[in-house]
Each structure stands twice: as structure tokens, then as C-alpha cells.
């Protein structure tokens, strides 16, 4: 047995097979320089793929049924599709290797299906991807990219936002990373997915771990590889207790979130993508208080179109079936971007060209997003909130821009709905002038992670500063009180969407300050509701 510790960012116990994520797995071999030869490799790989799929077809049709087997037959036909082949041939002629061409052509066709306005055809994107991945696998000698054949625990050095976008999320039982902090993207993702996760783990990552039985204890921050029987039974017991606690919390499902003195608070979920809505609904969220919109922009090589954004937002609105949705506009900066943004490297990205500063100076980025938000509002309640605000003037510019968007849509005869406009309060400046800002908008949502980082001058990505970090610092609590008071003085609502919102030791204080909404990780809603219902505040 091998064991060690890490910093837990989400509690729970996971037991499963270890999968080592090595970013080099995703590097495809470069062209040998001879495009004729690469083309031959590509065609040979198609031949092998056809044989594999043919064998699989026979097996499936005799063991499972004709209907399932037909899916494989369709994949065989996709292999021979001239559009696909010509696209790959063009890439190879342009200098790509066979593997790169198979991968990129597969991605392009898969994206085309995924963007269709037809649920059934959208789902076919998976078939295209499956077919092209088979080709890449064959061309890379069976090691084409990271994938998981069964649910398991993902072990990685660290994960970038664009890497997390591409992970097979439905198969991940836990994350274990050697780097990262409690506020890193892996941590944010883990909280949304509600799975135990350790960061800054003392694990030595080697391929031998692959496939071994692993246990992650997100309560005590421990992991075990090839665990002894005694550990397994202790962990199974822990898992059983966790499930019993979950059953206890389930009693609060569907109940209103009202304190003993009658204070009602809306408990919403933070999500990162349209696929995360299911976690919000499973967690019994009363709405979505923060939809981070960055993920639609990461892990790709060009800006999403207005239509893609609209489809994603519309899907969230429809799944929420009347529950409120707050979309935060693009909050991207030098530390979190994709190459196609072309942002320059900055010495100090947290204080740099990011969030609303990009949107207000890059209408080409801001316009499609705002148009998509207004269009999605036809299907249900949608609010927009803007990150990194420091002045009243910025808010007025945004409002003017939104008026322009509405008249454009009106003139183009495109249906759009009402969108309430609010702002994130995450800079000390915004907190201090919150009375003036409250006159301009319909709501506030406090981003406690950034507000804390800027107020305490502590970089949240720097693990060495965690000893100096105090989430309950009196300066933060004082700002939180001021923000709520100023919101209410101007008759608007105030919420908290940072991690602090889920801190049960502060729930009484937040209720007493009068916060109207708390937006937290989907998995924390029921525990928070229990706390609210038991509160005397």
C-alpha cells in the first residue's frame, strides 16, 4: 500500500481505478515531412479502423442487437465519408501528420454536429468523435489521447481550464493533483461536480499507478494506492456514513429556505456550463446565481459564435424551467485565456486587462455574448452581471451598450426578452462606492474570492500565502455588511456568489446582514438550507 496526504477541497470518499493524466498524451506525432507517406498512413489507419468496427459490429449485432450495431455501421460509413476524407487530405497536404489530420477533421465534424439545433443530431457528435479517436489511437499505436474506459480517479500534475473542459466528466470520481490550490480551476470544477478532491498532494506521479485501486478521502485529505483490506473496510464505513448524512440532508429537499425568525433567502448554484445544470438540479438549487461563461470560450481555437452562445444559454434556461438564472459575462484575463484572444502576457494579471475591461474595449467579443443573453431571455428569467467593476461610469457604459443591443435586435426583428442587469462586487472600490452603484443596477452579487484577494493583497493562486489568508478577516465582513446595507437602501437585492457563501459558520451573520441570495456549489445547497432553517437569525 502507498499512502499520502493532500489539501482537501471537497469532502467525500471515492474508491476506484487510478488514471494518470499526462498532457503529453494529447500531443500528436508531427508529420514525417512527406505528405504522400502521411496520406498512406491515414488510409491504412482507416482500413484498420474499418476492420475493428466490422468485428465490433458482428459481435454487437449477435450479442446486443441490430439497433445498437447500426451505430457502428454508421461509424464505418463516416470513415468512408468523402467530406471527412477530403477535409483530412487537405490538412495532410498542408503539412499535418495523419494523426493530427484525423484528430482535427474529427473535431471539426463533431463540432458541426454539436452546434446543430436538433437534440438527436447534436448527440451524434459523439459518434464522429468516437470514429476519429479510433483513427488517432491506431495512428499513435494505441495511445491517442487521454480517455477513461470506466469510472475512476484522475491523478494529474495540475489541470488547466482548457484541459478540464475536455475531460470525460461523467467518469471522474475524484481529482488528485500535485499542484493547484483551493481556488484553482480543478477545485472549482470539483465543487460543481460534487466530488472529493485533493490538491497539493505529495504523490509521485508515474505510469505504474495507472489502473491500480485507489481511495481518496476528501474528509481527512488522504489517499491510498493498493489499499490494505483494513483501510478498504474503514473507507467503506466512512462512505456509508457520508451516505447516511446525505440521506439526512435529503429531508430538506424541496423545502423553503427560511430561518426561525422568518428570514427567507434564495439558495442558488454556481455552474460553469450548460452541462452543469444537472448538478444544480440534483443539489436542489432554487436557481443559478452564477453561471461562469468562460468555459464556452476555453479549450477551442476561435471565438464561439452568437448562435453557439445562444444555444448554450437557452439550454440552461430551459433546463431550469422558470428558476432564475444569472449569467456572468466573460471574465477572462491573461491568466485564463485561449490563444485566439491574443492577450499579451502580463506581470500582474489579477490587476490587469481582464473582465469588463476587455468587454468594454472589445465590442467584437462583448456584442455576441450580450445578444445571446438577450435572446435567451425569451425562454425564461435571465439576468446578466458584470465582473470587475470599479466605477459608476463603467456601469453607465454597459447600460448604454445594452440599450444599443436591444435596439439592434429590435431592428433586425430578432426576439429578445427582459434582462435584469447587476454587477459583481469584487473590488474594494466597488464595495466602498456601493451606494452609488446601487442606484444604477438591479442587484449586487459579491464575489468573495476576488474581494478577499484584493482587500488582503493576497494572491489566491499562491499556495505559500495560505497561512496569511483569513477568509473571516474583519475588513471583509465589514465590507460585506456595507454592501448589503447600501443595496437595500436603494431597494435592490444583494447576494453572495463566492466560496464564502457556503461557509456555514457565517450563515447566521449573512442572514443578519440581510443577504437575499447565496449562490454556492451545487453539492452544498442542502447543507446550507439545513443551516438556514435551524438559524435563529
Amino acid at each position, binding site marked *: 500500500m502507498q499512502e499520502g496526504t493532500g489539501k482537501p477541497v471537497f469532502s467525500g470518499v471515492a474508491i476506484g481505478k487510478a488514471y494518470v493524466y499526462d498532457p503529453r498524451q494529447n500531443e500528436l506525432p508531427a508529420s514525417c515531412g512527406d505528405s504522400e507517406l502521411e496520406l498512406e498512413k491515414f488510409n491504412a489507419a482507416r482500413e484498420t479502423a474499418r476492420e475493428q468496427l466490422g468485428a465490433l459490429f458482428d459481435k454487437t449485432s449477435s450479442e446486443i442487437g441490430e439497433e445498437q450495431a447500426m451505430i457502428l455501421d454508421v461509424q464505418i460509413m463516416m470513415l468512408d465519408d468523402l467530406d471527412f476524407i477530403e477535409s483530412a487530405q487537405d490538412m495532410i497536404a498542408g503539412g499535418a501528420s495523419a494523426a493530427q489530420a484525423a484528430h482535427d477533421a474529427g473535431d471539426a465534424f463533431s463540432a458541426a454536429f454539436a452546434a446543430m439545433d436538433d437534440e438527436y443530431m447534436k448527440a*451524434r457528435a459523439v459518434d464522429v468523435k468516437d470514429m476519429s479517436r479510433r483513427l488517432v489511437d491506431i495512428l499513435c499505436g494505441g495511445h491517442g489521447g487521454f480517455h477513461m474506459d470506466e469510472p475512476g480517479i484522475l491523478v494529474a500534475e495540475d489541470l488547466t481550464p482548457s484541459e478540464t473542459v475536455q475531460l470525460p466528466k461523467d467518469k471522474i470520481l475524484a481529482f488528485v493533483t500535485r499542484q493547484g490550490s483551493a481556488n484553482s480551476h480543478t477545485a472549482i470544477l470539483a465543487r460543481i461536480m460534487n466530488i472529493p478532491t485533493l490538491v497539493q498532494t505529495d504523490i509521485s506521479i508515474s505510469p505504474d499507478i495507472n489502473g491500480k485501486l485507489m481511495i481518496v478521502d476528501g474528509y481527512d485529505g488522504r489517499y491510498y494506492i493498493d489499499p490494505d483490506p483494513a483501510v478498504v473496510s474503514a473507507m467503506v464505513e466512512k462512505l456509508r456514513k457520508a451516505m447516511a448524512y446525505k440521506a439526512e440532508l435529503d429531508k430538506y429537499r424541496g423545502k423553503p429556505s427560511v430561518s426561525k425568525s422568518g428570514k427567507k433567502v434564495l439558495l442558488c448554484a454556481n455552474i460553469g456550463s450548460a452541462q452543469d445544470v444537472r448538478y444544480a438540479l440534483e443539489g436542489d438549487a432554487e436557481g443559478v446565481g452564477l453561471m461562469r461563461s468562460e468555459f464556452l470560450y476555453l479549450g477551442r481555437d476561435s471565438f464561439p459564435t452568437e448562435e453557439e452562445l445562444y444555444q448554450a444559454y437557452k439550454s440552461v434556461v430551459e433546463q431550469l424551467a422558470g428558476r432564475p438564472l444569472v449569467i456572468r459575462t466573460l471574465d477572462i484575463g491573461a491568466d485564463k485565456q485561449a490563444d485566439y484572444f491574443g492577450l499579451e502576457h502580463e506581470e500582474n494579471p489579477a490587476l490587469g486587462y481582464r473582465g469588463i475591461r476587455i468587454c468594454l474595449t472589445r465590442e467584437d467579443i462583448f456584442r455576441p455574448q450580450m445578444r445571446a443573453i438577450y435572446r435567451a431571455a425569451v425562454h425564461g428569467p435571465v439576468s446578466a452581471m458584470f465582473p470587475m467593476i470599479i466605477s459608476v461610469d463603467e456601469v453607465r457604459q454597459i447600460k448604454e451598450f445594452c440599450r444599443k443591443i436591444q435596439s439592434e435586435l429590435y431592428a433586425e426583428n430578432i426576439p429578445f426578452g427582459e434582462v435584469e442587469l447587476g454587477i459583481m462586487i469584487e473590488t474594494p472600490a466597488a464595495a466602498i462606492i456601493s451606494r452609488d452603484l446601487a442606484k444604477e443596477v438591479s442587484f449586487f452579487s459579491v464575489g468573495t474570492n476576488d474581494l478577499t484577494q484584493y482587500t488582503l493583497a493576497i494572491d489566491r493562486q499562491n499556495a505559500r500565502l495560505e497561512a496569511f489568508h483569513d477568509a473571516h478577516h474583519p475588513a471583509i465582513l465589514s465590507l460585506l455588511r456595507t454592501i448589503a446595507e447600501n443595496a437595500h437602501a436603494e431597494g435592490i437585492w444583494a447576494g453572495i456568489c463566492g466560496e464564502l457563501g457556503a461557509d456555514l459558520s457565517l450563515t447566521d451573520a449573512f442572514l443578519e446582514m440581510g443577504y437575499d441570495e447565496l449562490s454556492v456549489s451545487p453539492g452544498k445547497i442542502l447543507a446550507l438550507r439545513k443551516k438556514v432553517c435551524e438559524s435563529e437569525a
Partner: protein
Amino acid sequence: MKEIKYTVTDPLGIHARPAGLLVKEAAKYASKVNISVGGGAAVDAKRIMGVMRLAVKQGMEITMTFDGSDEEAASAALEAFLKANL
């Protein structure tokens, strides 16, 4: 050139399986076979991804054109195929 029109009655429309069968049927002929829906752009009926991406639903009218030495046989076969399968 031959042209046929057909209104899809299958409740699922031209989903993956019938798209596959249609492409196989079209591929048997040397003629150029195109398919379009509702006045939209025509795609090659011998290429499955293009046919699937038309996303033809029940009640939609499709148009198929045939151009080549065996266009008579091709249009007759495809017409029979559409009636039997879609």
C-alpha cells in the same frame, strides 16, 4: 436529369440508421445523386455526414436529383427506398 420529391412520414425523420441505408443505396449508382430539404442547399446523397446534417424530420419534403448514365434506375430505386423506409 431526374428529380423526385418525397414527404418523410417516419416519426424519427432521417436519423442515423436510415441515413446510412440511404447513402448505401445511392452509392450503388454511378450517377451524381443530390438531396436537399425545404429549398435549402443540396448535398451529395452519397456522403453520410452531409445527409445527417440535413436533420430531416417527419413532414418535411425532400428533393432528390439524379444526373448520369444510370439516372433512370437510380431515381426509381431511391423512390422505392424512400417509400419503403421513410
